[in-house]
């Protein structure tokens, strides 16, 4: 094949302009300079191709060659992805460290994402035999990628016809043909390895409404602002308010089958933390090490900005791939603001017209396209599978100002909003999720599941709990004017109960062994004990008992209840029931 070649005429930061590259295509991957640095064509103007380079361009000179590769930025898909850590353009960082023998990511390294030297045991599908008709997405067999993930091998898109050969059970590398499909006299080999262009969503048969909760073990999320499998959410907050800790917790405790964690323009150590922790922590739903269901993408803040822009597409393509196998995939991106800034930087270099705060005018359509790739779907191919991609993005507004463009645009495309609050973070109320400004559009969606699987009173308890918090919020304004002692007795009880809820339910220490993950049952039991306290105490107050008396008489038990979140493990929940009974009893003694 003829090599398509041009030459560099300008270099400005990561942007390289080349001349004379024949037939360039938008988003085609190009190799730049003698070192063949990888880049992507982001604009074409006459004979000029503008290339965004994924590596440092330091030392590059005009006149050096540029090569077209003919293909768009593509993601490798196949067994071997799980457990790995990639950079923003899917280069395997662990193997880069091993081959380069350096702690630094040097330039011009090219390594494949899916290891070629490993062999996997392929088991062909029993339903298929030579002669059967197959098409895209049809499952022809599987590989046990990890003890948790059975990796279904699907006929790639673009391939259909008659199956003429399928390999018997045995060990194969990802590039070995494992089946042949014939159509119109042409024979196509099917391999375990496939590629898919990162910027193009993978097709599905039908999009369904989310139905099930994505359980997270975080009380304020599951109970007040639930996520649904296939849903979308954003977690905005100023620096140090808890975005990363929350996303780490989601990645650790969610009942997703596959988790993709994208560190997009954030800290190196935060990825290291995941790498060190996840192999030793257990998925609470399966009991297996977390790394057996996790893929990491790390394009940290000091790594090239253009690869940062690409990272979320690489991540979401992998998510869709596992979705197509019928899995519930959770993708978290920390932080979408850094991605948007990368977009802004690239647009600035291209001298595009800026819109608000220098962001390009297509910021919102890009955000919309990204979140549009979430959803619960019927996958393409046989047998029928339902899978989902849940997307959660951190947003890092400058100066914690939620009216800035990335936050405001994101809000339009997501259905769950977990608003982090700087004041709560300063007072160390963690997670610093503001329960007044946050919302979830999935409360009705998940009510059925809770009623059926955990407790039929779930919705009633949740709404009671929440209404106490809402009322407290109003009262706080009044307290600021007249002081707490001048409230009416029923209002004092609201304040006291809200304190218990804030301290004993909303607060959750992500670093405490017992507190970090609350099972659905624990959440309901704690909630019930608190709502019961309120209801029983309210009767006393209505009959004239001052809140002060109630507080004094129950102080020890209330302190016990507040501490229950980190003293009573998920396995000993009778203790909460028992505490609940003791509180009720104590209150009835006051009355009597």
């Amino acid at each position, binding site marked *: 094949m003829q090599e398509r070649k041009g030459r560099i005429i300008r270099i400005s930061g990561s942007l390289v302009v080349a001349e004379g590259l024949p037939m360039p295509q938008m988003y085609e991957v190009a190799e730049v300079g003698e070192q063949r640095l990888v880049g992507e064509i982001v604009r074409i103007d006459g004979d000029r191709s503008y290339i965004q380079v994924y590596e440092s361009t330091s030392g590059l000179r005009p006149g050096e060659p540029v090569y077209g590769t003919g293909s768009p930025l593509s993601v490798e898909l196949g067994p071997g992805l799980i457990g790995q850590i990639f950079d923003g353009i899917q280069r395997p960082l662990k193997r880069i460290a091993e081959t380069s023998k350096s702690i630094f990511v040097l330039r011009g390294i090219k390594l494949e994402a899916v290891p070629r030297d490993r062999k996997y045991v392929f088991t062909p599908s029993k339903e298929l035999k030579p002669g059967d008709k197959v098409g895209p997405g049809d499952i022809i067999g599987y590989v046990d990628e990890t003890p948790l993930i059975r990796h279904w091998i699907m006929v790639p898109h673009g391939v259909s016809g008659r199956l003429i050969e399928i390999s018997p059970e045995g060990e194969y590398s990802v590039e070995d043909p494992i089946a042949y499909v014939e159509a119109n006299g042409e024979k196509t080999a099917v391999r375990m390895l496939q590629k898919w262009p990162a910027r193009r969503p993978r097709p599905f048969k039908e999009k369904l409404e989310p139905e099930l909760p994505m359980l997270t073990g975080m009380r304020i999320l599951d109970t007040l602002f639930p996520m649904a499998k296939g849903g979308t959410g954003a977690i905005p907050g100023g620096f140090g308010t808890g975005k990363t800790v929350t996303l780490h917790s989601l990645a650790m405790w969610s009942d997703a089958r596959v988790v993709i964690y994208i560190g997009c323009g954030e800290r190196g150590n935060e990825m290291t933390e995941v790498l060190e922790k996840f192999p030793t922590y257990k998925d609470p739903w399966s009991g297996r090490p977390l790394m057996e269901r996790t893929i990491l993408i790390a394009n940290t803040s000091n790594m090239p900005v253009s690869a940062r822009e690409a990272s979320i597409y690489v991540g979401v393509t992998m998510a869709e791939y596992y979705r197509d196998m019928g899995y519930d995939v959770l993708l978290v991106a920390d932080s979408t603001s850094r991605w948007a800034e990368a977009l802004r930087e690239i647009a600035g270099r291209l001298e595009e017209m800026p819109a608000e705060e220098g962001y390009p005018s297509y910021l919102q359509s890009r955000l919309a396209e990204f979140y549009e790739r979430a959803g619960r779907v019927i996958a393409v191919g046989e047998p029928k599978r339902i899978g989902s991609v849940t997307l959660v993005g951190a947003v890092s507004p400058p100066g914690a100002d939620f009216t800035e463009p990335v936050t405001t645009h994101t809000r339009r495309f997501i259905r769950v909003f977990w608003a982090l609050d700087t004041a709560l973070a300063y007072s160390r109320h963690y997670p610093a999720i503001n329960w007044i400004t946050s919302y979830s559009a999935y409360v009705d969606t998940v009510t059925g599941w809770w009623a059926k699987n955990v407790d039929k009173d779930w919705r009633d308890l949740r709404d009671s709990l929440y209404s106490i918090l809402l009322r407290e919020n109003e009262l706080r304004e009044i307290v600021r004017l007249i002081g707490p002692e001048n409230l009416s007795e029923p209002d004092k009880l609201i304040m006291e109960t809200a304190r218990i809820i804030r301290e004993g339910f909303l607060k959750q220490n992500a670093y405490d062994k017992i507190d970090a993950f609350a099972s659905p049952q624990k959440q309901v039991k704690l909630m019930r004990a608190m709502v019961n306290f309120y209801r029983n105490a309210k009767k006393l107050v209505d009959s004239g008992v001052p809140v002060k008396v109630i507080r004094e008489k129950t102080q020890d038990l209330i302190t016990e209840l507040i501490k229950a979140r980190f*003293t009573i493990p998920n396995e000993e929940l009778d203790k909460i029931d028992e505490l609940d009974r003791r509180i009720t009893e104590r209150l009835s003694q006051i009355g009597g």
Partner: protein
Amino acid sequence: MQTSQYVEYETIKEIRGPLVIVEKVGSVAFDEMVELELSNGEKRSGRVLEVGLGYAVVQIFEGTSGVSTKGTKVKFLGKTLEVPVSEAMLGRIFDGLGRPLDGGPPVIAEEKRDINGFPINPASRAYPEDFIQTGVSAIDGMNTLVRGQKLPLFSGSGLPHNMLAAQIARQATVRGEKEEFAVVFAAMGIKYDEALFFRKFFEETGAIKRVAMFINLADEPAMVRLITPRMALTLAEYLAFERDMHVLVILTDMTSYAEALREISSAREEVPGRQGYPGYMYSDLASIYERAGRAIGKKGSITQMPILTMPADDITHPIPDLTGYITEGQVVLDRGLYNRGIYPPINVLMSLSRLMKEGIGPGKTREDHGDVSNQLYAAYSRAQELRGLAVIVGEESLTDTDRRYLRFGEAFERRFLSQGFYENRSIEETLDIGWEVLSILPESELTNIKDVFIQKYHPRRRSSGGS
């Protein structure tokens, strides 16, 4: 050196702020080093910011005043900006571009390195976890520093950030280890007396032998400030990862650095972001701050303590804001506390150490450390809230418990926060003072502390109890 091989150009077309645009150049590399020779023989240095066929945009570090389009020679040096690094640089003082300022001999390079370095592979990092005892209660007790962390001081003009940084540099130890930190100190745009303060301080404490200082003063060229921290960090990386040293890097004042960045951005007529700072300032600052940490298989480490003064004490200003988004927490100094005579005036509620959790607890500090810290935070923030309330509604309309919180708040500031410049508290002392002030509150309020620790450490339990 075969300088003769470099072609010289006298084809400056335009001078714009710190930038020089040279025409009719041959093959020039992006980021290449440049030497300028003025008609009076003065030499200046710079680097290529943009290059096209036949032209190059060059940033001049020492500024362009006095540079003329006529008679100025431009020489492209055929390499990117490299610094010589060597262990012998400890004990020495350099200018902002790494030239000796102390009258000593030129550095004999053990190695030459590109000042931009390369990003550390996230898969090669080792998570920082070794507790550094700074002897300062507000830090050790509530915002613990660990080896390999990047923890900035957010200050305001006139606040004692230099004192605090110096106190930390003097007192910082990792318990159970004899080895002291090597200090790499980079000053960007600070005043002469501030530079002198650090120099004398290092001399008096005898630390100067393990300190390398890079100094760019306020009246020196601003563009150099973009280079100075990178020089310092290149040396730090060499010492940490090739020479197995634990290095503490102090960068001051990052506000001057960011202002230089803004200047060059506006000279390039780039679309400005917030308050005129360039949109890429986050990435640029990250390319400095991320050069900290530990690595698998390496004995050394880089701990970074950047100092910045918040313009108008505003923490939402882009410089502290973007810094906070990159660093692993921040120590915030507070003018209100300072005015009330509290040293160090650390606003603990606004401060944060994100790596604290790995550095504390049994075997590292003490088992009750986490709970005590959480409780101090919860109680002090309650006290602050009630202070505000008491001003409006009067103390008498508060409950008894609330009034105790007010007393706790006072004691916390006077006993726990406040300490002397020469006072070096052990972590046990710090935690014991923490318990002492917490004991002002009723025990039922200590909802963040596990009962076993209350039994063991609460002063009332300890004095009355058996053990």
